[in-house]
């Protein structure tokens, strides 16, 4: 297997395992201000991706990422499916467009903006964007992977203070304040898992 294929397979597995471990916690967060299924939704998506793992990791890296995004869209449903799906589809497409020399932080920025358009949402709306934007900022200034992960975690925790403006939590108005956003939390968990994996397997 090529290094890239191993990398994709490893990332798929590490994401699956992280979500499986934290699914109950994510559901609990979603119960507080949503409908209690975010962990279940994410797990279903990761399992669908895992099931296609072999065929996916044989693709060129950009195609693999896009395919993973499409698998998420077609299997998750809810808000998480289109959001995480759009993120990965766009990363894949941008990577392909920009070829070998792609600047990942620019690619990520394009993809995050696509997520924001998809969700008609902005920074500060108490969603996974409130983790994605800070992660992008950290990558843009070339912070070490450990710092990126810590920033993701901190950003997720900061959503507790926010009033939700998008997603189901928005219907609660002020009652959404005081709870961490489930999507932000899953996003931080995945960021941390990915950073750790890359740190161990692909030292910068």
């Amino acid at each position: 297997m090529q290094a890239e294929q191993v990398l994709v397979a490893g990332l798929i597995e590490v994401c699956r395992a992280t979500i499986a471990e934290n699914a109950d916690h994510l559901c609990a967060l979603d119960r507080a201000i949503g409908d209690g299924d975010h962990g279940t939704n994410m797990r279903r998506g990761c399992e669908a991706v895992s099931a296609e793992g072999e065929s996916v990791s044989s693709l060129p890296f950009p195609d693999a990422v896009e395919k993973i995004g499409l698998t998420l869209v077609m299997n998750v449903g809810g808000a998480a499916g289109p959001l995480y799906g759009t993120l990965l589809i766009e990363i894949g497409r941008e990577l392909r467009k920009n070829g070998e020399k792609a600047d990942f932080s620019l690619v990520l920025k394009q993809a995050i903006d696509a997520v924001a358009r998809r969700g008609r949402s902005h920074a500060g709306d108490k969603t996974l964007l409130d983790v994605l934007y800070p992660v992008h900022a950290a990558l843009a200034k070339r912070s070490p992977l450990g710092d990126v992960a810590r920033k993701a975690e901190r950003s997720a925790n900061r959503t507790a203070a926010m009033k939700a403006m998008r997603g189901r939590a928005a219907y609660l108005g002020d009652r959404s304040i005081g709870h961490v956003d489930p999507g932000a939390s899953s996003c931080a968990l995945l960021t941390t898992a990915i950073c750790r994996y890359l740190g161990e397997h692909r030292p910068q």
Partner: protein
Amino acid sequence: MKKFMNTAETMVAESVEGFVRAHEAFVVFGAERKCVRRRHLTSGKVALISGGGAGHEPMHIGFVGQGMLDAACVGHIFTSPTPSQIIAAIEETDTGAGCLLVVKNYDGDLMNFEMAIEMAGDRHGLDMIVVSDDIETSRSGDGRGRRGVAGTLIVEKILGAAAERGMPLAELKQLGEGLNTRIRSIGVALNGVTVPQTERTTFSLGPDEMEMGVGIHGEPGHARQPFAAADAIIGHLCETIIADIAVMPGTQALLFVNGLGGTPPAELYLAYASARRIIEEKAIPIERSLVGTYVTSLDMQGLSVTLALLTDEEIALWDAPVATAALRWP
């Protein structure tokens, strides 16, 4: 959590299977069971498609049939169906005049239906109408819009009848959008619900508490209040609705009292009597009525009141024949 189920994973599929078998005169499964569709399609008619998370039965599958929906997609519990399901419904029911997708106003539903339109729009004439009748979620005024709840039934019935009469896609969308501005709903819950996957209650209420302004996903509402007599509860619901909707002289109303899953018919009829009294006192004539368990939130004890102000044409479309599992008249 005591529910009639085998496993949380198979619950939705088994329930939909039972539905399709019980109503095989009206409906069949689409390929790979991605949707439930009419047994007999009408060629050249705009197809009306809806869908949403499971847990709201009989909505939407119960509205599939002559005079209402052509297909419905069922997601996991409280989770929008995927674009893959929606595209399947489009492909099975588009007979040439395109499809109108009726979507309840939730970010998840919106995004999945939009992605389906993006993915299938090159091969089909597609448009979407978003139902947002839940008054409670309009209060904070953030412009997020309201949730779509029980009023969706009214939109689907009236658009279904109009589609049956041959109304083209663009006009149907216009009709639906106009209608949506004249429908308001509000709900009250006497208990929270347990999502089978997690076996946890979404919120829990004391023996003398109720939750005002709940939607249909077990979310908490806007305020917890002491439980009260039916007239007081229903009075509050009706007055909130009337204060929010522009009643013109000559307006004709449809009053819909909907059970959320665990409330028996007798209590719904009592609530209806109360709502009707209160609304007629405000000189709004009730021309049509619907009372029953149509748009649920799993086994939630509670109900919602919906008031729709209709034109003569819309009343005629409401009265038009419908033959579905949940609504049927000649």
